[in-house]
C-alpha cells in the first residue's frame, strides 16, 4: 500500500495561484537494475498522475523510469471555487491510488 502525502493550502483568495505538492511512496523500479545474482529486476513504475479540480483535469504528468523513487510533484493551481481537489496515480499494471484535499475559496 502506497502512502500519499499532500500539501494543499486550506484556503485561498479567488483567482489566487496556489502551490500544490503531491508525493506517493513508490520504488519506481526502473528496469535497468540487476539483483545480487545478476538477474534483471523487472520494471515497475507509476506511469500517470492526474489532478482534478472544478470538474476538469487541471494538471497531469507522464512518468518514465527516470523519475526518482517516491515521486514528488510541485505544481500550481488557480483557485476558482471551493471544492475537492482529487489526486490519482496509476501504475503500469493499471493499479490506482487516490487521495483528496479540500480547498476553500474566500
Amino acid at each position, binding site marked *: 500500500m502506497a502512502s500519499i502525502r499532500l500539501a494543499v493550502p486550506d484556503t485561498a483568495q479567488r483567482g489566487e*495561484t*496556489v502551490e500544490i505538492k503531491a508525493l506517493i511512496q513508490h520504488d519506481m523500479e*526502473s528496469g*535497468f*537494475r*540487476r539483483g545480487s545474482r545478476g538477474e534483471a529486476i523487472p520494471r515497475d513504475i507509476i506511469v500517470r498522475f492526474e489532478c482534478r*479540480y*472544478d470538474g*476538469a*483535469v*487541471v*494538471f*497531469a*504528468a*507522464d*512518468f*518514465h*523510469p*527516470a*523519475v*526518482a*523513487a517516491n*515521486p*514528488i*510533484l*510541485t*505544481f*500550481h*493551481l*488557480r483557485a*476558482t471555487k471551493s471544492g475537492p481537489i482529487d489526486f490519482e496515480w496509476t501504475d503500469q499494471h493499471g493499479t490506482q491510488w487516490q487521495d483528496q484535499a479540500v480547498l476553500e475559496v474566500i
Partner: protein
Amino acid sequence: MTMDRSSRLNRRQLLAGAGGAILISTTPLSAWAAQADMDRARLDLFGDRPVQEGRVTVKLPPIAENGHSVALSVSVESPMSAENYVKRIAILSPRNPLATIAVFHLTPHSGMAEVSTRIRMSGTQRIVAIAEMNDGSLWSGGMETLVTLAACVLQ
C-alpha cells in the same frame, strides 16, 4: 600463513574489481541514449515543428552527488490565460538509458507554468525541457549538471 592467504584474496578481489571496471568501460555506448535518441523522443512528442531557444528555464543543482535523485524545476514564461498558455512540458535527457524523463500537461487552470520533481541521471549531462504552447509553438531551455554518482550504471 593466514597473512599470505588474506593478501592473495585481496589480490584476487583487486583483479576482479579491475575486470569489472574494464567491463563497465567497454559496455557499448548504445546502452545509453544519445543526442539521436533525444531527437527521436522530440519527434515522437511534438513532430518536426521548429523549436526555439528561450522562455524555458530549467533549474538543477550544478553538482549532483547522487544521480538517483536530483531536484529538477522547470518554469516557462507564460501568462497562463485561456488564450495563451503552456500545454505540455517534456523533460529530456541526452544520456539516460531512455531519453524521455517526464511529460507534464498543463492547463490555463494551472495559473503558473512551474513544475518541480526529482529525477534520475546516469551521468553528467545537459537536461533539456521543451514546452509546447497552446498555439503550437515550441520553446526550449536546459541546464548542465555534473553527476558524481550516476544512477543505472552503479547499483
